[in-house]
């Protein structure tokens, strides 16, 4: 078999094998059971709880959870703005990098607090080491926020009637110290041993063969790369992200980093199975996500490995696949695999330029972000999936002649209102802001000429991708877009902010309202949600909602380009 394909299979295989036990472990953490790191990390948690005065065993209802979540996020937002706008004179700035402008700081702060990590700056010249450390902190806490929200929903889905849904701070700190931290340490150590820098010294320099002195940026990179992969953050230490040899030195680190992208999102599904004692349900959800993922992955692998016919016409061999914008050390298959894993999960780190993918692969990366729940971001991926499940339960419940119920709770107007709003939001943000930028560009082509390197269908894809990435809290860029200007900084910031918090508030509210309702035991007439049939139903709902929302836009971007490339 082709070794490139073998590499992809190995990555996916190891991923699933790791995700199952880690899912079980995460389940134990959220269920409050004893886990093996307790002797070491237990005291650490305790210190945090003592310092902050948190009573970790006090239960909260869903509203209190959300208040806690939004409050700490607001504090982080202010803290980050302050740091990024003043870092030029603060310590740990050996390269003398400048502070950020207000609009860039706003964009970057929102981007990191919202777990998006859209970067309208370049790490080497745009931030100091202190800045990088602040951003790294957010890579932990924003991931922890999403996971804690997800843990609340897991707790609420249990078969009982209650308002007590655990303690938010407890879930949050446990997510950071018990799950993210140990995994990040392992990944960072692997990276360090493979040559990724981990230092506080400034730029290094060497004299090239031609005799020029070349400055090479470095810094505390390994630690940040580990958490940016694990926490579906994606914000790289260096501008070109994991395509840079310092971030991703070889094929082995590429495997480790790529597995890290999907590990926790996938494990969260198995954690659900453990917490609810419904392993079949977890496998059905996993199955739906995997089939969706494969629908994007397989054609992408095919088109990337087949090569780009336009370049082929120029007489350049396409035997290695489409290699424009890709790293030779990874090859076309591993780059396509990364491209799809990073977009389905809202990670957004890249090891190849998405702008240079063949048109259909470009479309599948966008579709991955439009769905945003085939594995999805840590914690939030499942929350998005949960909303689709609510809609699927509603329609299929009707189809079997019962007013719809999900895990023993009746779904009524209020929950449908929230679910519909959340499902709508993504479409609304992506399409309306792309429309806004299209309108501006079409109306003033001279003034905004700097935005697009490639007008036409590809330019449209670039704008569509940027907002899709923002709205999916993904953070990758199609590049080729002149995005470091106030218009893009501010609009993308607004999109990221709305698309981060509303899809967290919505599912937590639904789950909280449902948890309070009367529990109805299953009967023979109840629609079982842990069956293949229901899996197909959820898949169909996702496919139809996404297809109906984005078909016209996609046909003007990647599809038009695809049919144009002969």
């Amino acid at each position, binding site marked *: 078999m082709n070794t490139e394909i073998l590499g992809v299979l190995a990555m996916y295989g190891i991923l699933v094998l790791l995700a199952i036990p880690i899912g079980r472990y995460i389940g134990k953490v959220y269920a409050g059971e004893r886990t093996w790191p307790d002797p070491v990390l237990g005291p650490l948690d305790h210190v945090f709880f003592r310092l902050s005065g948190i009573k970790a065993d006090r239960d909260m209802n869903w509203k209190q959870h959300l208040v806690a979540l939004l409050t700490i996020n607001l504090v982080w937002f202010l803290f980050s703005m302050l740091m990024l706008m003043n870092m030029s004179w603060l310590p740990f700035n050996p390269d003398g990098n400048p502070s950020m402008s207000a609009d860039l700081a706003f964009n970057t702060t929102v981007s990191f607090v919202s777990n998006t990590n859209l970067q309208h700056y370049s790490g080497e010249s745009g931030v100091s080491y202190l800045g990088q450390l602040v951003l790294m902190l957010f890579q932990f806490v924003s991931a922890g926020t999403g996971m804690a929200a997800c843990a609340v929903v897991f707790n609420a889905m249990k078969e009982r009637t209650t308002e007590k849904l655990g303690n938010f701070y407890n879930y949050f700190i446990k997510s950071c110290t018990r799950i993210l931290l140990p995994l990040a340490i392992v990944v960072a150590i692997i990276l360090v041993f493979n040559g990724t820098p981990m230092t506080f010294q400034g730029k290094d320099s060497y004299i090239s063969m031609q005799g020029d002195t070349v400055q090479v940026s470095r810094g505390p990179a390994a630690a940040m790369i580990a958490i940016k992969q694990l926490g579906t953050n994606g914000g790289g230490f260096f501008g070109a992200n994991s395509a840079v040899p310092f971030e991703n030195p070889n094929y082995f680190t590429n495997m480790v980093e790529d597995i890290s992208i999907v590990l926790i999102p996938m494990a969260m599904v198995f954690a659900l199975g453990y917490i609810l004692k419904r392993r079949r349900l977890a496998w059905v959800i996993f199955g739906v996500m995997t089939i969706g993922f494969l629908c994007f992955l397989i054609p992408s692998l095919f088109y990337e490995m087949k090569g780009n016919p336009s370049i082929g016409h120029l007489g350049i061999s396409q035997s290695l696949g489409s290699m424009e914008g890709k790293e030779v050390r990874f090859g076309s298959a591993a780059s396509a695999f990364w491209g799809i894993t990073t977009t389905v999960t809202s990670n957004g780190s890249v090891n190849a330029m998405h702008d240079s993918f063949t048109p259909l692969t470009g479309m599948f990366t966008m579709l991955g972000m439009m769905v945003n729940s085939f594995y999805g971001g840590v914690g939030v991926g499942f929350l998005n999936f949960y909303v689709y499940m609510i809609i699927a339960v509603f329609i299929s419940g*009707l189809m079997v002649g019962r007013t719809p119920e999900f895990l023993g709770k009746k779904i009524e107007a209020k929950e449908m209102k929230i679910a519909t709003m959340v499902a*709508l939001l993504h479409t609304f943000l992506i399409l309306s802001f792309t429309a806004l930028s299209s309108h501006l560009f079409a109306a003033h082509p001279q003034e905004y000429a700097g935005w697009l390197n490639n007008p036409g*269908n590809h330019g449209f894809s670039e704008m569509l991708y940027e907002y899709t990435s923002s709205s999916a809290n993904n953070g990758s860029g199609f590049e080729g877009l002149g995005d470091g200007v106030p218009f893009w900084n501010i609009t993308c910031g607004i999109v990221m902010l709305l698309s981060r918090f509303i899809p967290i508030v919505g599912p937590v509210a639904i789950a909280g309202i449902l948890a309070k309702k009367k529990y109805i035991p299953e*009967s023979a007439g109840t629609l079982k949600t842990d069956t293949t049939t229901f899996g197909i139903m959820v898949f169909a709902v996702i496919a139809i909602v996404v297809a*109906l929302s984005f078909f016209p836009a996609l046909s003007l971007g990647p599809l038009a380009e695809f049919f144009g490339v002969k």
Partner: protein
Amino acid sequence: MSKHIRTNKLFEPSLVKEALKQSFVKLNPRILIHNPVMFTVEIGAVVMLAVCIWIWKGEKSQGSFLYNFLIFLILLITVLFANFAEAIAEARGKAQADSLRKTREDTPAKKIFAVGEIFTNEIKTVPSSQLRKGDYFMCEAGDIIPMDGEIVQGIATIDESAITGESAPVIREAGGDKSSVTGGTKVLSDKIKVRVTTEPGESFLDKMIALVEGASRQKTPNEIALTILLAGFTIIFIIVCVTLKPFGDYASTPITIAAFISLFVCLIPTTIGGLLSAIGIAGMDRALRANVITKSGKAVETAGDLDTLLLDKTGTITIGNRKATNFWPGGTVDNYVFIEACLLASLADETPEGKSIVELASGKGIKPPDIRKDGAKFIEFTAETRSSGIDLNGMKIRKGAFDSIRSIVVKAGNEIPVDVSDRVHVIAENGGTPLVVSKDNVALGVIELQDIIKPGIQERFQRLRKMGVKTVMVTGDNPLTAKYIADKAGVDDFIAEAKPEDKMNYIRNEQTGGKLVAMMGDGTNDAPALAQADVGVAMNSGTQAAKEAGNMVDLDNDPTKLIEIVEIGKQLLMTRGTLTTFSIANDVAKYFAIVPALFIVSIPGLQSLNIMNLHSPESAILSAVIFNAIIIPLLIPLALRGVTYRPIGASALLRRNLLIYGFGGIVVPFIGIKLIDLLVSTWF
């Protein structure tokens, strides 16, 4: 089941005429706004009309006048079709209700005036419309009862066929559970005094008619939730269509207003939006056709969710009452002597059991002796003695339950023969009821009474079990007998020696477990349980209190009706779900028709998306819009009849419906649009 006038044809010409008229009346935006999906289509039609006028005045950029006018026309027809669906459902419901209402047109009423012009308690004939709640009236043989009411005095046989279709007359009497009379029914014999229990225009039937006519129809919670989802889809498509304008500008592709509006109308869920209220009305109408009056649409919906049914044994599970099936003489008693004693003891017994003993004895060729001359004395059943019988020629023959006869026998110093007591146990164990007969304080033998289980009832219970509905038999029998019958009939549980409060407690228990419970009842002492149950079906013959407490009234007084009600409820929800799925699945094909048509001029590559190979952009758009309109009337029969419910388990049902309405919903429009395009392409 009733046999009175019912329109089984879906499109009765007279109804269609009325519905057509109503479809235009409903174009009024103030009425249509209650249906947001169709309201937006109407706005689309108005915009297209404006575009047509604009072209008339000389605008060139929007395509030909004919094409735009056709789009306008089709949109208008789409709205009319949806209005027609609702109107025909209303008309059918109304016709059904009218046929019931005919029975209660103004009839003369013999009103009793407490203080009349000349006497007190004067009787004067007035039109029934002048009767008010609390008034009293008199009815004699041959009178039509003018209003719903409760008998306060007297007993009468009444022909209720006008309401129930059942020709056999029924007995109604003051006091007890069968004191209710319905307006429009006819008194056949005797004389009764009745208190009016409803104001004119407020009877259950009037309420139901108002529900069907839409005057007081409120959306059910489930309908509201579905409307929210549909509104959500509509908003998505508003976003898609509005943003398409700048996208088109960017791609330098002018998109005509007609194309925008067509795309929008095709995408929003017009099919289900147009049929939603028709489905709801049709659900109530189907209930009415089953002779059940529902007090709200919600009750029908809840019926589909029921988990537990409380069913009375007598009349539901078994035919009427117990019947004598065997005579078991004890010890050395002669068979003939024993049967004669049984016969004598039952001669004056007017209960169904007593009559069945006489019947069985006559069947064995034993005739009752002529007892008039002998100065016989009949002993009535009393609660104290719990036995009945006859004193004849110094003989004392008694018949009663084992305990009561035993106490008589033992008191007289005799013993019950062993084979008699054995026989009693054997009968009880087999679900029968033993009656012991004694002569002069000596036990002679045992009469066996058996319940006859209704044929086909086991299958119905099996069907219910597959639906996930638990059946509970309620009976006054002892636990042993109850268990035997419960096993034989195949119910899941039973309440033996049931008192009204037992039913209530059982319902409460089930409800705390999160279950929805239905029960049927007629007596005043059933009223609290009827009110407590999620679906309480009161018999029309029941007391006013029972009817007020329940949320449905069964005109047929048929206890098996609950089973039908469950299926009607499920059908209602399923029809909604399947048509929603169908409607949304249709959009896939419509996209493939319209999107290439929009951009084909500026981006020729998108011709590859035109997988149906439609003739031209105009023909593609027209075909999609025409299909979108035509599918509504095509689905009206399905909306009115409801999707057939099959008790095959929820997952299998979902698979089936997903395949038919989901997958079918994707495929059908591809074929339909292509066929229409073949026609339309001759002009466009």
